[in-house]
């Protein structure tokens, strides 16, 4: 087990290295340099000078190795746009995103798993179709549209919830205030997650319910509740965990569109804004952070498999 984890972590280092090379190549091959230099007031000489100062006139391998050398010393560089260290930017934004997407993920699981089980048990009934219908509507609604609609209804018309931001500016910290600001954006994310989770739970559950060991359990005369929770659900959750493993990195990479519509200062916005303005150090820092989380969460997912299904051996 320990050897397995160590091996996976070593693989992760190689993977992160490859991700950084790829990101570096991609962002540098995108046309139009840093938006910083796209200032009509700057003269040709000034642009030349700044290009040199930022080291952007060196060959790409030289630039990459310089960046890698700095990273090895713990220096991820500073944002071109805000002149702040990349590590600080990410440290400021990451908790905001985890708060929002984490809450959304938990809510999604709490809602989707029971709905999926219900769908499976009442397969092809009216309830199943209604749940499926709503899931598909949820996954089909564009996030930005739903976000703006919710703002118009709850903030502009009813005036019961804030239109954006993380908290009421100038007010003392209060949990209620924070939850009010979290409600609409996390609702948008829950709606978007719901379909996937519900459908996976449903199909997992249906598969398991047809298994021999369920029939055996029932034949032993176990109560239905015990059969479902002990025998069926636990096994049906394996594909669900896979999906959560996919959703988890999303919780860190942020939900750029939702964060933008709700003026939420999260990672998604940071990364997208950096990519659009070709803020190279921030793009690299944000991508690596997300890549790290992807690697770690896939490791955690694999470990969870082994816990849930003892037939799976890690080796």
């Amino acid at each position, binding site marked *: 087990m320990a050897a397995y984890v160590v091996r996976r972590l070593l693989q992760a280092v190689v993977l992160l290295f490859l991700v950084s090379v790829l990101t570096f190549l991609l962002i540098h091959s995108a*046309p*139009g*340099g*840093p*938006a*910083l230099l*796209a*200032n*009509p*007031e*700057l*003269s*040709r*000489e*000034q642009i030349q*000078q*700044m290009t040199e*100062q930022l080291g952007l006139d060196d060959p790409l391998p030289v630039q990459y190795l310089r960046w890698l050398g700095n990273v090895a010393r713990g220096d991820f560089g*500073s944002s*071109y*746009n*805000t*002149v*702040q260290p990349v590590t600080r*930017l990410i440290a*400021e*934004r990451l908790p*905001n995103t985890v708060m929002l997407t984490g809450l959304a993920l938990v809510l999604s699981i709490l809602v989707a798993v029971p709905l999926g089980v219900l769908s499976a048990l009442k397969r092809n009934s009216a309830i199943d179709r209604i749940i499926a219908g709503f899931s598909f509507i949820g996954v089909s609604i*564009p996030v*930005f*549209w739903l*976000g*703006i609609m919710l*703002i*118009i209804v709850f*903030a*502009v018309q009813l*005036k019961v919830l*804030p*239109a*954006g*931001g*993380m908290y009421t*500016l*100038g007010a003392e910290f209060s949990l209620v205030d924070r939850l009010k600001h979290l409600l609409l954006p996390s609702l948008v994310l829950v709606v978007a997650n719901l379909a996937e989770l519900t459908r996976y739970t449903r199909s997992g559950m249906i598969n398991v319910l047809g298994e021999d060991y369920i029939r055996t359990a029932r034949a032993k005369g176990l109560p239905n509740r015990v059969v479902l929770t002990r025998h069926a659900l636990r096994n049906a959750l394996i594909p669900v965990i896979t999906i959560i493993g996919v959703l988890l990195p999303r919780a860190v990479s942020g939900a*750029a*569109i939702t964060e*933008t*519509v709700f*003026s*939420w*200062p*999260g990672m998604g*916005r*940071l990364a*997208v*804004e950096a*990519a*659009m*303005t070709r803020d190279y150090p921030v793009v690299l820092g944000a991508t690596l952070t997300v890549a790290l989380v992807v690697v770690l969460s896939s490791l955690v997912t694999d470990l969870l498999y082994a816990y849930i299904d003892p037939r799976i051996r890690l080796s």
Partner: protein
Amino acid sequence: MGESVDRVLQQLRGAGVRVSRRELLQLAMFSSAALVSGAALAACGGGEEGGASTPSGATGAQPSPTAAAATTPAQQPAATPTTSAGQPRRGGVWRMALHANPTAYPITIPGALADLLVNKTIYNCLTQYQLKDNQIEVVPDLAESWEANDDLTEYTFTLKQGVKWHDGQPFTAEDVKFTFDAILNPNVNAALRGPVSSIDRVEVVDEYTVRFVLKRPFAPFPVMLGYNQAIVPKHLLEGKDLNQPTEFIANPVGTGPFKFKEFVQGSHLEVVANPDYFDGAPYLDGIVFKVIPDGNARVAQVRAGEVDFAVIEPPQVDALQGAENVEIREAPQVNYYFFAVNHSVPRLQDVRVRRALSHAIDKQAIVERVLRGYGQVATGPINPLLGDYYNPDVTTYEYDMEKAAALLEEAGWTKGPDGILTNASGERFTILFNGPKGFPVMEQVITYAQQQYQKLGIEVTLDIVDWPIHLEKYRNLQYDLLMEWWITPPDPDLYDHYHSESAQNRWAYKNPQLDELLVQARSEPDRAKRVQLYHEIQKLIADDLPVIYLYYPRELQAMNTRTKDLPLIGYRDALTWMEKVWLEE
């Protein structure tokens, strides 16, 4: 002929109406793209925001301050700043929307719009602008007064006494010298060196007197000092890395009516009242600049009363109609939109061709239907806001497709068998038309122009690209026509953009006669003579048509009506008067 155009414009308008909805979606989807453009735009002092246009009574949503003015031919807003209702009241926090993260440090890049706006409240320049009698004039800010020598090569500024930095240190002539030495230092990435590049050296005469020795006679110098040239404290920045003064940026110190309080990345920047402000303590307790990247979210927050002020686009006016406590103001700004012409392309060097290209565009229809009336047809590069400098009596290019066709034929272009114009040597008339992505109004205008030029038999290829690429192509003359705008200081000086030796002349335009006049006009100490020279210059420009002039847009401000005494000028300038603003109960 008019009919078919009407149809096209009707479609455009239809598109325009839909844009308000589609844009809503697009903006949400690509708001990051808008951000980039926003930031970049900002850089040029303008923006999607300031740039694109400004509404008029068309919507019926506006209250009257500007309505009366809008009917006058020049369409200049009234001089009176705002509706002042009663006695100013102290207290309250004013909340304004920004589209991007600001950096409260005025010397170096990015120097984006968000930075400029925030800096107006924290710092002061030596001069600032106000609107008086329908024209913008320069008035003292940190300066008490100034005088120039006879040939305008030396300006001596007397500074206000008793001004203190937010940390309590006195403001002196040393700070002024330090600031301009920094901006002019070639190792400093000063974003706005252009306006003060005429300075040769700065001399401290005494504690409250500073002398600027210029490289050449320069009449608009005091105007340029008010153009985002904020003074920074020497005692905190001396010896620091001026390109990256991390400590200072974390805790900026100015002389302005508001002091920096906090900046939360991606969320907001807050400033609080400076009770010791030299021009009297502000009425407001503070200002919160909220970072709201999405255009529709900005509108929603204005409607919800969570933001007191946001600059919006014409298509967003509908979304604010009938909103409680929201006033939509049209603010004048020194800005013009145009089609840049690449003069290194032989077929565009013929003035008849450029005139034909102008005749083929119905500018009045663009103003009415694309800008929805929030603007005015441009006659040249000098804005009517510059008062008597503006010369309306110049050659204009009325919409006339037949005349356009005739001019092209005169220039040797005749339609070939495929309907494309061809000259004697068999060259086909093609136009590579460049524009920046993410600006709905500009994209509509360019599409319209493409249709118009195609009707004349010109093969038009659109090249709508991301902002940085657009600027790169502009800078490298990789276009035939290109849509752009210039927001300039409120002075008629056109040297930077029109003189053949200026690096900012992005059109490869050369006109020796104009070159001479431009140098003469910026060196002329006598105002009346200067006015005369600029009238002549405008005539010359209108005849030779270096670029195709389109319109002077107005800025659309969505403002909560509790805001009082915010001057009705573009927000870049209005924000320098925040100490006067107060909030109604």
